[in-house]
């Protein structure tokens, strides 16, 4: 039991004036009341000065303790908030669209009979993608690496949808070393495939673009699908797992320093535009 006793500063603070008072009383007994500040016997017989002194003592001790305790609680709250924020980023980063997973597994299951080698390739790509996703919680990667994982993802979709799905890349080489949150692009591309490509007959084209502009790195994902209506546009960033996750994750990481915009022309296509600050140090953000 003694092992559990910890030095509690609030108790010490509380006990200190009590100890001092006891010491003073003892000295008063020993050396006589005239040498020390003592309550005059006349006053002592009355109740109110005694009560007043007691009250003042309690207030003098309690007020600093209260202030100190509040500061401590605030500090702890702040720490917990930080933890919560980190946990939220983690949770957001490690979500994969279950629909995509299901569809891919169905494809694999079918390929195992008809084309076992291709099935194997898809499994390797899928596990690669999952591995990146597991690592993504504490990782910021360069755009180059992010594009590699997008390739892995697109390879799977290409096997599922066949040559009808065409992918164009217009990546400016000077953006390749930009630091981006890991697995931030995949949901954007998935969204473009889902809304742009798979709704129209005769295939479609996804264009990935990146360039630098005004100290920001701009990444665009464009499709040539049927476009979105105003209603769909307004809810796209808040509903559903994919885009809203990306949006929330970005806002936790960058605060107000990023932009995620959707624009659409009915019949021509949709563009998702992501603007993030160029080259941020990874340490600052993982905290």
């Amino acid at each position, binding site marked *: 039991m003694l092992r559990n006793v910890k030095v509690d500063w609030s108790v010490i603070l509380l006990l200190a004036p009590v100890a001092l008072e006891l010491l003073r009383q003892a000295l008063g007994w020993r050396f006589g009341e005239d040498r020390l500040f003592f309550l005059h016997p006349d006053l002592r017989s009355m109740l109110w000065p005694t009560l007043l002194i007691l009250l003042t003592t309690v207030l003098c001790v309690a007020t600093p303790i209260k202030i100190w305790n509040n500061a401590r609680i605030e500090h702890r709250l702040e720490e917990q908030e930080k933890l919560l924020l980190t946990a939220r980023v983690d949770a957001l980063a490690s979500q994969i669209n279950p629909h995509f997973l299901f569809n891919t597994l169905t494809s694999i299951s079918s390929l195992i009979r008809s084309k076992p080698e291709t099935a194997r390739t898809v499994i390797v790509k899928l596990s690669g993608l999952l591995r990146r996703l597991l690592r993504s919680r504490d990782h910021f990667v360069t755009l180059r690496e992010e594009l590699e994982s997008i390739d892995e993802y697109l390879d799977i979709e290409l096997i599922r949808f066949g040559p009808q799905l065409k992918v164009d890349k217009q990546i400016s080489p000077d953006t390749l070393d930009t630091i981006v949150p890991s697995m931030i692009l995949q949901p954007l591309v998935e969204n473009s495939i889902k809304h742009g490509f798979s709704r129209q*007959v005769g295939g479609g084209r996804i264009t990935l673009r990146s360039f630098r502009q005004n100290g920001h790195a701009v990444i665009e994902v464009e499709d040539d699908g049927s476009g979105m209506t105003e209603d769909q546009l307004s809810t796209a960033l808040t509903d559903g797992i994919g885009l809203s996750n990306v949006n929330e994750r970005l806002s936790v990481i960058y605060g107000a320093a990023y932009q995620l915009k959707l624009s659409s022309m009915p019949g021509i296509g949709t563009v998702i535009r992501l603007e993030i600050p160029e080259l941020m140090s990874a340490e600052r953000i993982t905290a």
Partner: protein
Amino acid sequence: MNPSLRAVLVDDEQLAREELHYMLNQLGTVEVIAQAGNGLEAIPIIERVSPEVVFLDVQMPGLNGFG
């Protein structure tokens, strides 16, 4: 033996169609008589073969599963 149920499969993903086809064949009670890649393709086929049951994907190009 159970009588066969005549079915049409509609899905834009060929691999998903093949997988469903295989699973239905394993059942032994469903016979897949035709397949289509989207809603628009499916309508004339369904009119022609008049199946007893249609397996419709929801999200498809052209015409989706909801019509």
